[in-house]
């Protein structure tokens, strides 16, 4: 056949295929119309069916919901391949299950160290440090502002000494450790690196993550220290230092969890988090870093709320949006930079104080959504967390929930089993479109930092929280045990863990002893050097490491930086 004949044949084939496709769409449309007539003639339980985020859900999804030609191939693709909708790795849980990582910390470093040993002995595969409020805000245990809060909501870590105790008998080159700390993250990170040094372990052997996501602190969680600009500079300092010295360590976990917990919808969580991620990337690039030098170590953290399918779709959409931006906008060439890896935690805000045992079931469904969404690690909440810190027993049940999911349910046996579901693919597309629309709203605010300073993010989140509260109180949305099915609420018999004032007293005494025994001249010298670095713009990590090594305290280091950086004042409104 000549070339012309070949083309004629091809054109004819194409026309046939198009005609066939058109006929198929017509057939499906007719079929759907028939079904819709039947549906309309039958009473339904409700006029509207919506997700917890207010997204209208149609009664039925069909192939017509995925109209784009070639969509499945380009947008869904294969696991481990751009745009990673089906998962960040090509073999996913067939090779390795998600890391079961329970967030834990209470009282002093010694008590928490015992809990870590307990968790590791029970099959947990990673550690996650919960700090107390004073530590989260950069105050020492013996600071007046810490009164009544030492060790209550997490573990108190005021210096390298506490960090050494925290990981006593836990080789830091063998366990990956996640630390939830933001405002003073760079300081706690340096305590951690210095504690590893004491164990004879160099930073290049460290695997783990520090949350270090200050943007969502201003937006939602509110454990800040410094104003946005110097805070962002410290974060980029960590990107720079880690890419050189600790290449296996994630210097940030860009977090939607707290945004969602504060009241945001699924789409707001997705969009705010990713937009924050883009901000960090832009800051790194503006520093002159090669995007492929630091982007592969950016990690994420999402909340897994009640609405099963929407949460799965959210994770799938997150990976796709991130991959596209990294490649197409920021010009990342290394596929590692496109790959969004995430930790997930079940939603604390969904736990009820009423009939708390029911929380075990809520957590189990949420955990399953996290696995079906392709998470890399997971924390399952304990049933009693809305009453107090979890007891050992309830923590064990939460961990067992993950193990049952992993070893009994069959869920991890195949990769992204919901791909191709008309509903899940449609939700994934919708969430992506919603996020793109929210990105535009953020740009209209002038970007992330101006949006924070104007209180825009905070107001958006508070508005969504109010909508949810109204729906709950008007019983538009049923929460079992709270506004419906309340029989049995009276008999709450559940043990809770209580932290007494003796923890604070002992911690204060330990600090006094440490302050007496350390080399004061060295403390002064390293703090002065830090102040200088804060002023001249050189990388802060080596200076803070020096401070950590000679037992400068958290607050001393914070104060030295604050002298130069100032402190953050929030826009107050409700």
């Amino acid at each position, binding site marked *: 056949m000549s070339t012309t004949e070949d083309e004629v044949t091809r054109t004819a084939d194409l026309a046939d295929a198009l005609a066939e496709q058109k006929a198929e769409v017509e057939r499906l449309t007719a079929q759907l119309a028939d079904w819709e007539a039947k549906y309309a003639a039958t009473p339904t339980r409700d006029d509207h069916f919506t997700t917890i985020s207010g997204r209208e859900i149609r009664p039925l999804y069909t192939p017509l919901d995925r109209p784009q030609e070639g969509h499945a191939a380009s947008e869904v693709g294969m696991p481990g391949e751009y745009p990673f909708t089906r998962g960040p790795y090509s073999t996913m849980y067939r090779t390795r299950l998600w890391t079961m990582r329970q967030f834990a910390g209470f009282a002093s470093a010694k008590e928490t160290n015992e809990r870590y040993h307990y968790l590791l002995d029970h099959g947990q595969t990673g550690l996650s440090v919960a700090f107390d*409020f*004073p530590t*989260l*805000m950069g*105050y020492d245990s013996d600071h007046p*502002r*810490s*009164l*009544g*809060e030492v060790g*209550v*909501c997490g573990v108190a870590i005021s210096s390298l000494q506490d960090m050494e105790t925290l990981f006593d008998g836990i080789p830091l080159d063998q366990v990956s450790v996640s630390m939830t700390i933001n405002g003073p993250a760079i300081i706690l990170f340096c305590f951690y690196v210095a504690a590893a040094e004491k164990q004879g372990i160099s930073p290049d052997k460290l695997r783990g993550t520090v949350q270090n996501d200050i943007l969502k*602190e201003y937006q939602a*969680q*509110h*454990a800040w220290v410094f104003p946005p600009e110097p805070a962002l500079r410290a974060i980029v300092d960590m990107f720079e230092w880690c890419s050189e010295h600790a290449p296996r360590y994630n210097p940030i976990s860009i977090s939607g969890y707290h945004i969602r*917990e*504060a*009241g945001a919808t699924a789409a707001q969580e997705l969009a705010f988090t990713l937009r924050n991620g883009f901000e960090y990337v832009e800051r790194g690039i503006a520093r002159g870093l090669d995007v492929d030098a630091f982007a592969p170590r950016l990690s994420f953290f999402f909340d897994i709320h009640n609405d099963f399918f929407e949460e799965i779709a959210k994770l799938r959409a997150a990976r796709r949006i991130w991959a596209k931006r990294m490649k197409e906008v920021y010009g990342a060439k290394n596929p590692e930079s496109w790959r969004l890896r995430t930790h997930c935690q079940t939603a604390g*805000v969904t*736990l*009820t*104080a*009423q009939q708390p045992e029911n929380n075990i079931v809520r957590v189990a469904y949420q955990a399953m959504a996290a696995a079906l969404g392709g998470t890399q690690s997971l924390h399952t909440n304990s049933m009693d967390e*809305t*009453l*107090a*810190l979890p007891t050992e027993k309830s923590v064990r049940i939460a961990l067992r929930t993950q193990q049952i999911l992993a070893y009994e349910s069959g869920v991890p046996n195949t990769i992204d089993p919901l791909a191709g579901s008309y509903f899940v693919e449609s939700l994934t597309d919708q969430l992506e479109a919603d996020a793109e629309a929210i990105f535009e709203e953020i740009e209209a605010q002038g970007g992330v930092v101006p949006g924070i300073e104007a209180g825009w993010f905070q107001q958006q989140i*508070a508005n969504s*929280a*109010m909508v949810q*509260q109204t729906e*709950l*109180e008007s019983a538009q949305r049923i*929460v079992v*045990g*709270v*506004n419906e099915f309340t029989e049995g609420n009276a008999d709450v018999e559940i043990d*809770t863990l209580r*932290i007494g004032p003796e923890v604070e007293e002992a911690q204060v005494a330990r600090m006094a002893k440490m302050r007496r025994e350390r080399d004061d001249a060295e403390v002064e010298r390293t703090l002065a050097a830090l102040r200088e670095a804060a002023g001249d713009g050189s990388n802060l990590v080596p200076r803070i490491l020096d401070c950590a090594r000679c037992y400068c305290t958290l607050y001393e280091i914070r104060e030295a930086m604050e002298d130069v950086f100032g402190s953050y004042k*929030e826009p*107050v*409104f*409700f």
Partner: protein
Amino acid sequence: MNDERKIRVLVAKPGLDGHDRGAKVIASAFRDAGFEVIYTGLHQTPEMVVNAAVQEDVDVVAMSILSGAHMTLFPRVREMLDAEGADHILLTGGGIIPEDDMAALREKGVGRLFGPGSPTTEAIAYIRDWFEEQGERV
């Protein structure tokens, strides 16, 4: 006191706890219920809360505490209000507070406290009832 006057409420977030979802929701609900509401913002010391309460001449201080520091912060604010001659101010609040602790705080002159899942309408009704009772007493 008369029925015409609006109830003035200071919604406060004492301590280092940054979880302000509840504080903002309750502040909005109080406002919608017709109260005059002042919100302190985050990270307040007991001194800051008491100063604001006295300066703003409020009827009620409603503190939101999710950090577990309630056994320190509620009694301290109560004592300091009393020391400022503001013992007429109702100190109430909510958060993650076990029932035993609620009872113990009651003994120390703290009003009713609301745990997770409490409807905002309950707190509103409680404050209204208290306010009316005060009026009758005058």
